[in-house]
């Protein structure tokens, strides 16, 4: 039986969270993420869960922190200014190694910004965001089905690594209507829950905290986290390749622009330009492995981003800057057209064959 339905992006995230067994959602409304809390307010109680609208985003993330300490599946969602407010709490969740699922429906900034699609929070998402040396696992869906699948999986990943997982989308993905197959969730792998606090019944008391005034202990903690992050880097890099095999040029783009870039590739191929696409799916860990086969093979790269050029730094590192790498960007909520991206590529690499 097909379970294919037409749903709004944000609602898909809500539905997937329920099906993933999320029992608690703490949030504070902010456009363009609000449909997530609204959808869950309506539907999570029917599944035996609770939605609590917190006093602010700081309250919401700290409620998540508390709930996650009990081993309960918990999520919060917001948009950029709200995610900024959550950063302290996210840092604490990372330090206490808590499996919290976070959603950022990225809106433009800095400041209050606007509601249009943007990728301005790439640095904030992948390089820490809050204080201290931690990483979030960052998933970047680019279509309805991925909003669903990645949300389902985010809960497993968070528990597997005892680390917060961030789903990074934007207003375009959040507001669009697209068919999605509401697949049954595969059973989650058994995870160790011997760390949770739920009352010391017949066992030693447990403390979940992140305070250490002894530098030696502090370093031991950092080394333990580093080892975890290295393990995630090794095992969890994900990306999609599209016409990349024989490509002479590559676009690198994720999320909304990853979608647009696919059409650009098809258009270029029609014109005889051997263009391919690498679409990062995990933004952290950044899929460095994807680039290895192309290092001495291609002639150049264009990253397509909705910011001043953030992911391009990771692409340059992954490529060891061995080919020219250019940025094509739009900002402030504007989306590039397929034509303008292709024109940029042709101009940078002097590929314009037609208009001589």
């Amino acid at each position, binding site marked *: 039986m097909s379970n294919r339905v037409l749903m709004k992006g944000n609602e898909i995230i809500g539905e997937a969270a329920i099906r993933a067994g999320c029992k608690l959602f703490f949030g504070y409304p902010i456009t363009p993420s609000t449909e997530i809390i609204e959808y869950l307010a309506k539907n999570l109680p029917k599944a035996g869960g609770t939605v609590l609208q917190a006093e602010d985003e700081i309250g919401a993330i700290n409620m998540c922190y508390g709930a996650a300490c009990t081993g309960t599946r918990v999520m919060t969602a917001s948009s950029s200014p709200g995610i900024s407010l959550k950063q302290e709490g996210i840092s604490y969740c990372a330090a206490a190694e808590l499996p919290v699922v976070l959603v950022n429906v990225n809106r433009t900034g800095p400041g209050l910004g606007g509601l249009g699609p943007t990728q301005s929070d790439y640095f904030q998402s992948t390089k820490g965001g809050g204080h201290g040396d931690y990483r979030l696992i960052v998933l970047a869906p680019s279509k309805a089905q991925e909003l669903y699948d990645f949300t389902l999986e985010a809960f497993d990943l968070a528990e597997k690594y005892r680390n917060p997982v961030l789903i990074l989308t934007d207003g375009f993905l959040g507001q669009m209507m697209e068919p999605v197959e509401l697949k049954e969730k595969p059973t989650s792998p058994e995870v160790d829950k011997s760390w949770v606090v739920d009352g010391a019944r017949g066992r030693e008391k447990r403390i979940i905290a992140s*305070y250490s005034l002894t530098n030696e202990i502090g370093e031991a903690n950092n080394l333990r986290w580093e080892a975890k992050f290295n393990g995630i880097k090794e095992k969890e890099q994900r990306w999609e390749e599209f016409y990349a095999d024989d490509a002479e040029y590559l676009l690198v783009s994720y999320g909304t622009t990853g979608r647009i870039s696919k059409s650009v590739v098809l258009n270029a191929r029609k014109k005889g330009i051997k263009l391919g696409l690498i679409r990062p799916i995990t933004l952290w860990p950044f899929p460095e492995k994807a680039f290895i086969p192309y290092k001495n093979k291609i002639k150049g790269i264009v990253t397509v981003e909705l910011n001043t050029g953030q992911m391009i730094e990771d692409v340059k590192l992954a490529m060891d800057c061995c080919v020219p790498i250019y940025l094509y960007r739009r900002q402030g909520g504007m989306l590039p057209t397929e034509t303008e991206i292709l024109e940029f590529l042709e101009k940078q690499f002097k590929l314009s064959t037609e208009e001589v």
Partner: protein
Amino acid sequence: MQKVFGRPKGLTEVAFSFCPGCTHGIIMRLVGEVLEELEIIEDTIGVSPVGCAGFCQDFFSCDFVGAAHGRAQAVGTGIKRALPDRIVFTYQGDGDIAAIGTQHAIHTAARGEKITSIMVNNAIYGMTGGQMAPTTLEGMKTSTSPYGRDLVINGYPLDLPKTIATLDGVKYVASVSVDSPKNILQAKKAIKKAFQVQQAGLGFALVSVLSTCPTNWGLSPVDSLKWLRENMMPVYEMGELKVAEEVKNL
């Protein structure tokens, strides 16, 4: 021979690390006794703040979660919503609950969150070395009010329990002191009631306890108690500030 005085089971064997004469130790002991008497040690999850109060996570024998500065009640809310049949309490300094955590103090109370909060009011930031707190008294010298708290510059001290007592979701609020044996008994009664309110599933309960900080007040332990009595007790409304009808029948 019968043992008449010992460590309550609600406390671990870890020795208190407070400065001499600091009444944090008395307050923690009272909470420890209450946990034992109500037989809730194994059902309880405590939330510790940042500050001298934060060391409590090592001293209580129940499970504990360490929160960020000011966030203990939001963290407690998350725990309680996940495990409604457990007892959840926060133990926070006045800076933690009445300055950086004020939004949670107000809204945890307004929601009638079924948790218990213990606020320790020593009119100063203890851990960070004696800076001005929202509870610092008029004219009181601290390292960030070296000429004394000036109401024009710094505003008035905040009597948080009094504010919290006005909110509907709140079932019990008391402001007590541990400066004398008599007051210690009163304080324990209030703390016990605040936990019983939660056991009965009634709503939010807050007990504020006036406490000394001899180190940062620059006074001897004995003089500190005297100072508390003479200066803090007249400013902060003392006694049971709110006892909801349902609580009277407990």
